[in-house]
């Protein structure tokens, strides 16, 4: 089963992302900030996709993306940023960090699932 790591400091956002992903048959692993996600990534085999928020305590999402790209088993894993940030500057920063794509909250479940299906196949 395809495993997706969802990273967000908001429990309700993790819940909404989780419901969306599970409705499409994905297995969901959750982390509440970048640091927890990075620790999971270091300890476990790579997931098939990471979806991360940007503004989080302890470690923000763009730092997480940069750190994940340094891990050999995460170099080819798609990393989607899911955030309220919509500025071009932030998107460019995300792209430079190694993100695969940028989704602006509030997300549409249909659109998110279509995007995921496109990038993990």
């Amino acid at each position, binding site marked *: 089963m395809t495993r997706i790591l969802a990273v967000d400091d*908001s*429990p*309700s*956002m993790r*819940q*909404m992302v*989780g*419901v*969306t992903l*599970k*409705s499409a048959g994905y297995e969901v692993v959750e982390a509440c900030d970048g640091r927890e996600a990075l620790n999971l990534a270091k300890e476990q085999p790579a997931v098939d996709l990471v979806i991360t928020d940007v*503004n989080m305590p302890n470690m923000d999402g763009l730092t997480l993306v940069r750190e994940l790209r340094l891990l050999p088993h995460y170099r080819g894993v798609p990393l989607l940023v899911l955030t*309220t*940030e*919509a*500025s071009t500057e932030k*998107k460019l920063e*995300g*792209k430079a960090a190694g*993100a*695969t*794509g*940028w*989704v*602006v*909250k*509030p*997300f*549409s*479940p*249909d*659109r*998110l699932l279509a*995007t995921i299906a*496109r*990038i993990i196949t």
Partner: protein
Amino acid sequence: MAQTSQNIDAAQAIAAAVAQIELAVREVQPAVEQFGALIDHMSGGLGELRSVRPRDANPEAIFVFQDEFDGAVTRLQKHVHGTITQLQFYDRLVQHLTHVQDFLAGVAGQLANATAGEDDTWGVLRDKLRVRLISQAQRELLDAVLPPPEGAQFNSRQAREEHAAQGTVELF
């Protein structure tokens, strides 16, 4: 001395407002979590319906009702997805309130501190809030009410674009 006393009164008033915001968010949290759980159950139930139909249904009956059944499940799934989109505005509200709450707590702390006003404490607090705000509309409102020393610059086009960008996906 009178100034210090006024500052302490103001700090206490702001601290009271901070506590009320915190309580408001805390009080509604269980209900929202329950709402999220209900959405989860509905979504799970729809998944079960999809998987059960071909296995358990009377083949002749399902042949007749297949389109109606599938159509109803698809419509319900769309409604569930709609609630997921709308519920995210609650998360946005909580984030917004939390940042304002932190700002007010910082203001209260500075007012209660005898050395407040000796450096750019207010500017630092303001800038910290501005960075944490999650939309251009929120930042422009802050700039309008509490402008930076260099003056506020408004970019309504950027705010409109940001609003229009909600829900968009960009692959790199």
